[in-house]
């Protein structure tokens, strides 16, 4: 495992959650972060929701969603933003989950365009469908966290570079270390 598990409970609003994440990220190292709590809430505040979603997506450490109960807009967004999502036996998608703001962007980033199109536009999906396509798991968070080794954060940064930069620059980003013998 990459380090001691940090736990965050989402019981406040979007701004409070963003603040809690920033505080957690000040912890030295790259410990995995487990996020649970009230995942049935709606997304209310665009700026704060974008802030916490970006933090979850871009964190150079494992981000694990602990999904229990009804997954509303907040829960579905978290599920797609996190690196892995653990579905508890009582978890279920809320009515109207397809209208979650930001769903298209999150789905494309997480699963590619084909999967995003299926999620948004095709026949009704269930949480089991998300498990089948690899977006979620029925394993417990304590099991899932063992998947992450110390190199996960570095690979996640390379993945981000590959998503955000043109091919040649993304390649150079990940090859840089081969040229530098005196890294700072």
């Amino acid at each position: 495992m990459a380090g001691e598990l940090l736990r965050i409970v989402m019981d406040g609003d979007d701004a409070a959650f963003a603040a809690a994440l920033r505080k957690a990220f000040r912890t030295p190292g790259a410990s995995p972060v487990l996020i649970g709590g009230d995942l049935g809430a709606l997304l209310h505040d665009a700026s704060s929701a974008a802030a916490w979603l970006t933090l979850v997506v871009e964190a150079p450490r494992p981000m694990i969603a602990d999904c229990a109960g009804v997954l509303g807009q907040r829960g579905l967004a978290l599920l797609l933003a996190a690196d892995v999502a653990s579905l508890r036996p009582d978890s279920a998608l809320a009515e109207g989950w397809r209208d979650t703001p930001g769903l298209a962007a999150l789905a494309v980033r997480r699963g590619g365009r084909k999967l995003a199109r299926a999620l948004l536009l095709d026949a009704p999906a269930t949480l089991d469908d998300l498990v089948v396509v690899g977006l979620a798991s029925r394993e417990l968070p304590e099991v899932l966290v063992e998947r992450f080794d110390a190199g996960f954060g570095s690979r996640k940064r390379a993945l981000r570079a590959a998503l955000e930069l043109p091919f040649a620059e993304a390649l150079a980003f990940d090859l840089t270390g081969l040229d530098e013998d005196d890294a700072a």
Partner: protein
Amino acid sequence: MSDDILSRRAGAPVLSAVVDGVLTLTIERPEARNALNPEILSALSGAMAAAALDPSVRVIVLAGGADFSAGADIDVIAGHNPASYLASPTRRAFDAIRACEKPMIAAVSGYCLGGGCELALACDIIIAADTAVFGQPEINLGIIPGAGGTQLWRERTGSGLQALAAFEGGLIDAFAARRSGLVDAVVRAEYLGAHVRRRARAMAEKAPLATATIKAALRARGRMSLDAALAHEVALMAGLLATEDAKEGTRAFLEKRPPRYGGR
């Protein structure tokens, strides 16, 4: 590798070292995220003046630590009146950097905000770590970017992002900065220093007169019309043809060997 350390004393606001023709100036105030105070700005200004007179310095790297610089020291800004600001080290330091006749590379990681961002933008090349965050948040303090932050984004990013940066005071990450043209490359944070040093060394090995002439030609663009700058470029090129370096460069190419430039 030469190891000509000019100054690396503890407590200095800016660490200064010359290695292989590359002067690296490192802002050293990590406890304040490298916020720019008069000591730092005066040290930068002095180092730039010394570098201008030192032929062993071919390329200058401006760097920070975990953060490049979070901007001007708020206490210092609050203590200024209109007259004192105009005569402050802030103005002199930024003028000295923009007047620099040698290639400058900014090595940016972490916060690069306000005056820190203006420092980076005064350089010819900006290499960002993937941790870098850029912005001109001065509007949030009821002031404006006062050292180039309303002007210097434009050439790199266009007027839209320039206006958004100044009016909204928001932040953009390294990858967005790269896509917009604000920075020239993004590298892993842990390799930023080594990567920039390697590129700077490669630049320092090029023909010195040609390198200095390129800088002169680049600087002309913002100070002349395009027609005048193009004419200036032709004149600079013509002048270079009479140098030993130009002869050596072409001779080495034809003889399929590395050139040996003497800066003459």
